[in-house]
């Protein structure tokens, strides 16, 4: 194999690739006022915010705020065989426990997504670790959320391995600028994080088709586990999904935002999480830099004399931000 040389900074600039420093210095520091961070960092807050605005989110079953509430666990679990426990201030998907079934009722034993059993003690311990801040930024005490487990739609079944594929959209000044589908692999252990080995597949902004994917920064066309082609899967309700993302930009007040959406079999697109510091791998997944699109949005907004509605913005993005030939 030929030596995999690095790319020249000049070529990167031509392609409009945004680097970490530019993202932090210009987009995040310039567009995201610090006071709005808690709205997205605290998943509980952003869930409330989204619900108030009529956006669909996974239903919240319970919130555990202090260790003594862990005793109420059996009561909380009573009606639910499947649920997800997550820290409200977790970083990068850490500390999420997925329970996808009940193995016995007395004593209650649940089944984790990995198939291993988990009794109430183990779940309680996980909760108290969350409360003690094991997964939060800087180790601050945290709050645990117990919520609806998404019944993920069979749409991506052929091109994902276990786990929940999600759709990440970057929203810049209220306009969806780029999207990707994150597909779990056996290598990523069913997780949808790109740096853990999940596949990022670009999405055509105009029609909501998946494009080719990228795993470990390398271009791939087929899923390594299922051997199915990644590109050409059409996301249903693409317009609605983009509108949801655009509205997240409004409700949070953030100018540079990542919106993670999952497709539920019954409930349709649900907003899973908002991110004030979305990663840059989305560029690799789409084979395109963010900067050209972002600049196009800037020019468009300069030209406007009013704020467009979410639907108009989603329309504009679909018309103007499809992959470009460079």
């Amino acid at each position, binding site marked *: 194999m030929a030596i995999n040389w690095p790319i020249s900074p000049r070529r990167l600039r031509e392609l409009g690739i945004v680097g970490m420093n530019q993202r932090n*210095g210009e987009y995040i520091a310039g567009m995201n006022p610090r006071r709005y961070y808690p709205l997205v960092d605290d998943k509980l807050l952003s869930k409330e915010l989204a619900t108030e605005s009529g956006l669909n989110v996974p239903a919240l079953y319970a919130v555990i705020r202090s260790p003594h509430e862990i005793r109420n666990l059996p009561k909380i679990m009573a009606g639910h065989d499947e649920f997800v426990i997550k820290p409200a201030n977790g970083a990068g998907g850490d500390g999420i426990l997925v329970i996808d079934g009940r193995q016995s009722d007395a004593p209650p034993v649940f089944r984790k997504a990995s198939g291993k059993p988990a009794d109430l003690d183990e779940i309680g311990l996980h909760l108290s670790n969350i409360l*003690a801040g094991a997964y939060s930024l800087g180790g601050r005490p945290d709050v645990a959320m117990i919520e609806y487990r998404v019944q993920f739609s069979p749409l991506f079944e052929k091109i994902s391995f276990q786990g929940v594929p999600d759709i990440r959209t970057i929203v810049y000044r209220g306009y969806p600028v780029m999207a990707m589908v994150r597909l779990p692999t056996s290598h990523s252990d069913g997780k949808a994080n790109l740096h853990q080995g999940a596949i990022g597949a670009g999405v055509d902004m105009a029609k909501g088709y998946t494009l080719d994917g990228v795993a470990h920064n390398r271009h791939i066309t087929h899923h390594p586990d299922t051997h199915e082609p990644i590109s050409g899967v059409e996301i249903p309700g693409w317009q609605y999904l983009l509108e949801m993302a655009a509205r997240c930009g409004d409700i949070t007040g953030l100018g540079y935002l990542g919106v993670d959406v999952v497709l539920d079999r019954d409930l349709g697109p649900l907003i899973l999480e908002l991110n004030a510091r979305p990663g840059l791998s989305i560029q690799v997944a789409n084979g395109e830099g963010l900067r050209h699109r972002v600049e196009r949005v800037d020019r468009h907004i300069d030209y406007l004399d009013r704020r467009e509605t979410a639907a108009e913005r989603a329309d504009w993005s679909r018309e103007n931000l499809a992959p470009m030939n460079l």
Partner: protein
Amino acid sequence: MRRLHLLFVVLLLSVVGLSVAWYKYDVLGFPITPDRETETWTVEAQIHLETGSAPASVRFALPSDPPHYTLLDEGFVSRGWGLTTQSRGEEREAVWTKRTPEGNQTLYYQTTVYRDQEEVQPSPYPGPADPPELEEPLKSAAESFIEDIREGSADIETFATLLVKEVNASRPNENIAAFLRPDATETERTRLAIRLLAIARIPARMSHGVMLTDEGRNLAPTTWLEVHNSRRWVPIDPRSGKVGFPRDFLVWWHGDMPPLETAGLQDATLSFATSRSLRDAVETAQLQSAIADSRLIDFSLLGLPVDTQNTYRVLLLVPLGALIIVLLRNVIGIRTFGTFMPVLIALSFRETQLTAGVILFTLIVAMGLLIRFYLERLKLLLVPRLAAVVIVVIFLMAVISVVSHRLGLDTGLSVGLFPMVILAMTIERVSIVWEEHGPADALVQAVGSMIVAALAYLVMVNAHVAHLFFVFPELLLVILALTLLLGRYTGYRLTELFRFRAFRTLAHVNRPPRDGER
């Protein structure tokens, strides 16, 4: 606008920092390299007195702003004598008085000097010299002698040189033979040279000084000739006519007068003793700034108590370490555990040395990780788990120290100098990254942290760097300016050129499916 503002602040900080440092280096003479010693000379004048019964007074010329040298301190030893110092013209003198002196007595004057300038400082032109009144035929003889010299010279210096050579010639020019006794002393010949120079209206004066020699005893002052070339006094050896003072010549007083004048004494003799010593250059510079009455030195770290000074010697290196972190993280893109943890590790390496430090640190973290993974199986709560890790880490440190001491490896003892809370936090973070993102990620960050710590250590342990920041703490402003500048760096990180290298081919791959294709 924001950019301009930043550039202005950066420029201001750099200019202030660098100019203060330059002033301290150039004017106050603070050394930029450590362990530099300056040569200082201690000169002692001893005045032996044979007193009578009458009230005695002794007037003694003191050095005042000698060329090439700076006086660092001076002191008088004169028990029972009244002492005043006063200036007479440009000269300085000490006057000792005593109403009822008894027996033989010795007065001492001691000064410490060091050579700090190579150039003789300019001094105002005293005006053309008044030609001496001479009778014929001496007058015409002198004038024709001067005329001869003038023919053969180009400027004041060569004129004076030629003249001195003639005055000292073994068979003097017939025109000046009349002025000289064959057995004339040095002082007399110098005096004649000054008179002859005055005929040519060149201002000249006599200087007296001491040749500085190590362990010099019973030295007598040497006479020198100085002519003014309208910019500065040019020293000329009255014996050979050579221009310039010898390197170790300390001018004591100017003018054709004895250094010592006494009243009411039977006898007084003067002798000089000199000795050379090496003094820490920083100390010398400090003394000199105190003499120059520089306000800067009042706010120097050198004035703090010594143990506080040592704290700052280390503390002042942290900003440099921070700058290195900024550089390695934001420009190179190395990933580390925690932002400034590597600097703290680097600081502890100062005590353990690099190799031993890296080995011990890796050893403790690796062992701590094993314990941590075992504790994980016990399903402990977060805070007790952290506490347990701290306890185990301290225990491990003690074991390593004892074992290495038994084996005769003293480097193992320094393990106690690692900040153990940092160790425990490192172990906790490594294990979380290990669990959540896999061992590869944990290793990448661990190796990154070690590289950053080692680099920061190598810079911070450098004696030159430590000295530079301790003696010139204003250089921190420059570090601050650089950090601010890097804070606005939005270009690519070096590692991103690798991360995004797929774009060398990727950009042409992802095209939207054409209609009808699917």
